[in-house]
């Protein structure tokens, strides 16, 4: 359980900040020092809008330690509108409604807790996009 590790990741976890390459224009999440497309080191922060579609999904019944209380929960690969795929849980959704192609939007939720009195880690999850919500 590392407070420092989770603190370091807050820009990614709370605000979906990745990078944009000044040379090829590619946008990537998470942050990297080297552009994965053109290998340039001229990269700057880019905040993703948090909207996308479900690329794939799975329902987890056998959880790793620390997540047993959430079973069954849905994990997904979400394709952000800007292009990158991110791994995240889906939330506020009926398992039977989850499907590939479903439009989703980022929300901030509890990811896990380290013991009853321990650190609570928050970060991004995705919920079905609410209609007429803009």
């Amino acid at each position, binding site marked *: 359980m590392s407070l420092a*590790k989770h603190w370091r990741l807050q820009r*990614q976890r709370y605000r979906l900040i990745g990078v944009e390459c000044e040379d090829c224009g590619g946008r990537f999440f998470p942050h990297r020092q080297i552009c994965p497309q053109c290998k340039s080191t001229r990269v700057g922060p880019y905040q993703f809008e948090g909207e996308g579609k479900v690329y794939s999904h799975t329902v987890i019944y*056998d*959880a*790793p330690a620390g997540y047993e209380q959430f079973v069954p929960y849905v*994990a997904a*690969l979400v394709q952000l509108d800007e292009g990158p*795929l991110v791994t995240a849980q889906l939330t506020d959704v009926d398992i039977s409604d989850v499907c590939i192609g479903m439009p989703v939007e980022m929300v901030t939720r509890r990811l896990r807790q380290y013991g009853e009195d321990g650190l609570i880690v928050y970060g991004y999850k995705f919920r079905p996009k609410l209609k007429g919500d803009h």
Partner: protein
Amino acid sequence: MRKVYVVGIGQTKVKEHWERSARDLAVSSILEAMEQAGIDKADAIYVGNALSGELTGQEHLAALIADFAGLGGIEALKVEAASGSGGAAVRIGYLAVASGLQDVVIVTGVEKMTDLSAPATAEALVTATDDHYEAIHGLSLVALNGLLMQRYMYEYDLDRKDFAQFSINAHNNAVNNKYAMFRRPMTVEDFENARMVADPISLLDSAPVADGAATIILGSQNVNSAVEIIASAVATDTIALHDRRNPLFLQGACESAQRAYAQAGIGPDGIDIFEPHDAFTIMAALSLEACGFASEGEGVRLAMDGEIALQGRIPICTMGGLKGRGHPVGASGVYQIVELVQQLRGEAGANQVDCRLGMAQSIGGSGATTVTHVLKVPD
């Protein structure tokens, strides 16, 4: 560059070895292999292991094993590449002998992973993924493969039951392997009724967690029913599934296989038997595609058409594979080589395939490291 031969093999049964620790298992397999090779010392030992620290609180494993195997002070190093650790250790042993720097090398794969609860073991296994951007979301390794299988079924219009033959074939072959964990055939009904672990992956899509150790002795001389390693290649891909160029294509496995084929001077048509990293049925299908045995989306059809069976066009998991023989995570890559050697020597018993060239592929995590070896009966 010198030729590299496997001149001895040893293995323990794959099971829940309640009464044996990692060092016990490793040492047994080492002594068996050394006796078979007719040696009482070696120049080095490379130990493939993924999770000794996480699961047993023991790092520094190679020095420990060299000590307890009575190898008295030799070069001993642990090699780790998640579930590809066994293959990775073979690779390092190969480099040592091929380079001319070592003459006789022991390569041991060992994993002791049944002491902890299932959630604790699952937690350890996700150290193979991206801690910051995959594991934190509660993904298990099974779930990552579930994401792959779900998307694959969607893109190629398949059902879960279309994957059944991967597991059925593995279990059929394991029946005749006395070292295998599961020696009971599986039916299509068993497969269809299996419990979901991470939908659409069921218990019977998944290779079992288990304990075991396998050892090979590498040397530069063609002695003692030696089998030659004619190709050895490692490639990597992004650690996280979400960063893959195409998540459904194992680019690392493809590159590793291509380099191995080039080194061996062959193509996929030249391979008689294949030991893939069948940790999950979807991984077996994607491996067949990445290595050029089937085009994209057609890997499952090879299984459905019976081409992966012992009498098929490309027999896989000939002694049970990860699914039937079992998957002590860091050891599996060495078990694959042991089994290829048995086949190529003609020692595979009821599972014997008429073969001269065999390929083994050991994969770390969801595909970030792939180690490929090609073995051949010497001329």
